């Protein structure tokens, strides 16, 4: 491995970090809001809402993320929906995140024993009040580890956006392959950057879990 090429590759690849992080942030925010809505639908009394949430999870967890991205990129224009590569990627990542995080949020909510709902009702709490003060503080503790696990997976998967031509880090790495016929050095740089990012997320998630731990 030639260290000069390594140092030359760093700024070329780092230029894509903005796109990587922006896609990650948008998809995490949109996907989490969607996931919260889906998990409430799943737990609602209305059958059509339940079915919709179950169908959504089955579909978007059953097919590869890459197929979702290709569908958004190649097929939606045929339906008259023209998205930029960036938006097509964010759409695919958001749907993926919503489907996976919905399961996490639902399992967090149902982990709270039903006796607490009865107790809250007996105390005259409204449902919204009960969700906010009783369920969410307890559920968050259960949700945190799988939620951050999915978030880390999402960050790594933003690399697939290279296949729908988003100029993020993996695409800029491939550009070095074809321009300079150098492989090991840019791959090394790309791997180190991702490893750094996922390790930072791991540290943050450990911090959040620590903040939400039971104080006894």
């Amino acid at each position, binding site marked *: 491995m030639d260290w000069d090429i390594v140092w030359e590759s760093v700024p070329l690849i780092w230029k894509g970090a903005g796109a990587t992080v922006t896609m990650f942030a948008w998809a995490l925010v949109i996907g989490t809001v969607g996931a919260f809505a889906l998990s409430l639908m799943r737990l609602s009394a209305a059958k059509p809402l339940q079915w919709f949430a179950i169908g959504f999870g089955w579909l978007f967890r059953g097919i590869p993320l890459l197929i979702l991205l290709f569908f958004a990129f190649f097929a939606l224009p045929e339906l008259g929906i023209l998205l930029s590569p960036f938006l097509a990627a964010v759409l695919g990542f958001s749907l993926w995140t919503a489907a996976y995080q919905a399961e996490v949020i639902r399992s967090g909510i149902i982990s709270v024993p039903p006796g607490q709902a009865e107790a809250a009702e007996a105390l005259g709490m409204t449902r919204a009040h009960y969700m906010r003060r009783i369920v969410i503080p307890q559920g968050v503790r259960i949700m945190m580890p799988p939620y951050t696990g999915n978030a880390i997976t999402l960050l790594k998967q933003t690399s697939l956006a290279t296949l729908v031509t988003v100029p993020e880090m*993996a695409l800029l790495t491939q550009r070095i392959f074809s321009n300079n016929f150098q492989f090991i050095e840019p791959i090394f740089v790309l791997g180190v950057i991702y*490893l750094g990012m996922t390790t930072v997320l791991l540290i943050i998630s450990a911090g959040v879990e620590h903040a939400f731990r039971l104080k006894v």
Partner: protein
Amino acid sequence: MELDWGVVVRAFDLLLKGTWLTLILFFFSMLLGSVLGLILALMRMSRYRVARWLSLGYIWLFRGIPVLVILFFAFFVVGRELGLTPVQSGILGLGFSAAAYIAEIIRAGIISVDPGQFEASESLGMTKRHYMRKIIIPQSIRVIIPTYMSNSILVLKVTSVAVAIGIVELTGITRQLSNSTTRPIELFTAAAGIYVILTTVIIVAQEVLERRFALKT
């Protein structure tokens, strides 16, 4: 916009060929990943610190880097060095990636067995090999099956990333067909349908295995 599902029928042979390659990638990367994962899990629980560190480092590295990057390395660096075909490189990359996750699954299964059982086996004079085979593994397999199987669904879906190193598996052939026929909606829907069928087969296999290894009470 008029949909023409006939394109799926006409392209069916090619889609099946792609599916076959997807299954080959899936099968061999699971095989490689499981063998390597078992070794890593045992190293992680070894009494030798170096073995534990090596295993921990491997898992941190391969879970911290996107599969795409691992495939780039397997194809452009290892594959070129050793003269591997793209499919061989793909299996190598996917298998080494899967191993990191499978190692954690196997370890979780083994440590789920009550530590008292290790002590009891030892006090009965059983060798480690004997009690692992007769006491620990039969119990941990029950814990391992559900997570192992849902992980294998992820591996099946992740084989689609092999398109990035030029392997024309199901996703790759669908992309090619969609470009040449300009029928992306029909073709990607068909591919999605095939993936859903394959993952459903894995879910059914999981049910069967769980029943087979269930506690007989």
